[in-house]
């Protein structure tokens, strides 16, 4: 089902991306050391997709992980620039169940359906500008853009056909198999029809608490609003998929 790519073809773009992002981080850190702080944070994502003219199902949110390094440059006591670099998961899930309808007959107690979950792992960078209140307990808001590069996917698939025993007596057409429940979990790339890149806007809000003069605890909430259609299939060019993600992380901010 999925196309297997040579390792080098997937690693090289990722290496290039990391190189660019690390350069950005170092650029920020080249400012006066008293103006720069660094940090690390980890947490979870809750994401889904905005699908247009795609499969006739309702997409729901799927949890994932997030981890990032960040660097912040204070332009003045309240305005800052920030570059976040990390890995996160964006995904979605849906459940599609219906009663069996065979040859015009509805079987009210028999069902077929699928539970489907996918989590796509991305490297991600946010370039942000923000405002912070600047006390021991500081609140900051920020906005900017994100750029992500697709890595791989974790997929869970459960298909089933539940046939009520009474219906089973009625469904005796040998062409109709009855009874099925299959679970499948796998990790693979699906970039045959998923764009490698995702770009969008970021909104964020953080609460920082200074543990001491050099260390702060930071709780951050971000929202990623994808602007790029990540469904890449020429045979279905009307279909569009946009990522929508909430990211919540808890981290430590270090100042010199």
């Amino acid at each position, binding site marked *: *089902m999925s196309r297997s790519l040579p390792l080098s073809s997937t690693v090289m773009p990722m290496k290039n991306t990391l190189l660019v992002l690390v350069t950005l981080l170092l650029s920020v850190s080249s400012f006066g050391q008293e103006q720069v702080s660094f940090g690390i944070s980890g947490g979870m994502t809750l994401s889904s997709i905005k699908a247009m*003219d*795609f*499969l*006739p199902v309702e997409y729901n949110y799927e949890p994932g992980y997030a981890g990032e390094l960040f660097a912040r440059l204070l332009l003045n006591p309240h305005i800052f620039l920030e570059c976040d670099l990390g890995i996160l998961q964006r995904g979605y899930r849906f459940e*599609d169940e*219906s009663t*069996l*309808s*065979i*040859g*015009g007959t509805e079987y009210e107690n028999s069902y*077929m*359906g*699928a539970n*489907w979950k*996918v989590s796509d792992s991305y490297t991600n960078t946010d370039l942000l500008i923000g405002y912070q209140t600047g006390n021991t307990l500081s609140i900051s808001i920020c906005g900017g853009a994100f750029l992500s590069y697709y890595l791989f996917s974790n*997929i869970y*698939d459960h*298909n089933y*056909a539940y046939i009520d025993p009474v219906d089973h007596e009625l469904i005796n*057409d*040998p*062409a*109709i*198999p*009855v009874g*099925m429940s*299959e679970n*499948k979990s796998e990790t693979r790339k*699906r970039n*045959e*029809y998923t764009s490698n890149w995702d770009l969008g806007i970021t909104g964020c809000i953080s609460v920082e608490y200074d543990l001491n003069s050099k260390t702060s605890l930071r709780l951050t909430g971000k929202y990623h609003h994808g602007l790029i259609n990540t*469904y890449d*299939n020429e*045979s*279905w060019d*009307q*279909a569009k*998929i946009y990522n929508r993600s909430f990211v919540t992380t808890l981290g430590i901010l270090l100042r010199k």
Partner: protein
Amino acid sequence: MKGIISILLVIFIATTIQAQTGIVEYLPGSTEKISQLIGDYDRHLQTQTLNQTESRYGLIGTDLGVPFNHNGRTYLLFGDCWGATDGDAIAYTTDTNPEDGIQLTFITDGTDIYKPVSIPGISQDAFEVPMEGISVGGKMYIYHTTDNSSTVAMGRSVLAVSEDEGETFSYLYDVSENYFINVSVVDVDLAEWPGFPQGTGNGLVMFGSGSYRQSDVRLAYQPADQIEIPQSIRYFTGFDQSDNPLWSENEDDATPLFSQSCVGELSVTYNAFLRKWLMLYNCDPPRGINFRTADFPWGPWSGPQLLFDPWEDNGYCHFMHVNWQFSECDSVHDPGRHNEWGGEYGPYQFNELTTGNDSITTIYFTLSTWNPYTVVLMKSTLRLLSYPTFVNAENPARPSDFLLEQNFPNPFNPSTTIKYKLPKSNHVSLRIYNLEGQEIATLVEKYQTKGEYQIEWVTEGLPSGMYYCRLQADTFSRSIKLLLQK
């Protein structure tokens, strides 16, 4: 006054003819051999044949067995006989119970030997055979292939007539050297079938194939009372902007009814039970006897389905010989041919023997087999899947809205049928996707005229799971859910 009543009557009939919608599907496992019609001994069933043709008529083997009605009898045309003499042969029957076989009486030459069909001036050697008969005005007409050569199989078809019940024939004219070499002809009451160039009386609807077993099927029409006038034939060339069929005097203009370039011999009838036109033909691929259905002679014709798969439907290892170098699973071969494969061809429908109701029908047809070289009587059952609804005959194949129906069966393994309707001609895309939106199969990607279509999706090597079938035509798009269960 009488004229007005006649006109109103014609309009009434034309507008109340009911075409039955729904998908016609082969009932799996229903095809079976009933009896062997030719020869003395059925090596498959290990029994004496009903007709004892070798003992009674000197006929050891032959093929075809094309049935047609004429003056109260059903006549059968056989080709390339093997026996006391060569050539083709004609038999007749009044037997109406096919379940115990068909009792045949062969036309003889006054002795106990079958009488070869002879059309003066026409070569009737191997592959030069009668492939259709029709009765018009009390005369018997046969369509006969000729001009077979090592480079062109069946290079020409001719029409011949007999006014003495098949005893003698005389050549009338060449029918075709192009698209109508093998033909199947249906006599219709034109009042029931608006769309032909002529409005009243009876018409001959001619389905034809050209290059032997490498041809698509085309359609022609001829007024029945002008059967002896070759210039009266009109060829179906497509549709006008209102989707009315167009006709041409030029055979070169004839357009294929569908694309499946494997057709040679073919047999078309109008099945009065399912109210569908039913076409049978031999093909490879898919190997075996295929069938298609349509509401109108010009279609749209359904996708092909297999009616008889020689491996699946008890052909090979039963009444069709398997090369003993492959398997010694049968002993039905002709003498000395144990290391040759058997084969099947030439299905010809006995329309008068058809039984059924408005949702299911059993058809009977002759099937030719090679090794053993004989003709067997077969039967199959077809069923209409969706609940029958009725539409006005003025616009029976013209649904008002796009529609993608739920597939059947569902869940399925390994194949399922998908039906859709087009209210107007369009470029149509019918594709299968998995849950990720990955394209799995393209079932249709072409321009199609308005009407109803069905297509079978055969899954090969796909895992169990949910799939979506998406129809895209014009601004319409819809998806249905399909569950493959292995």
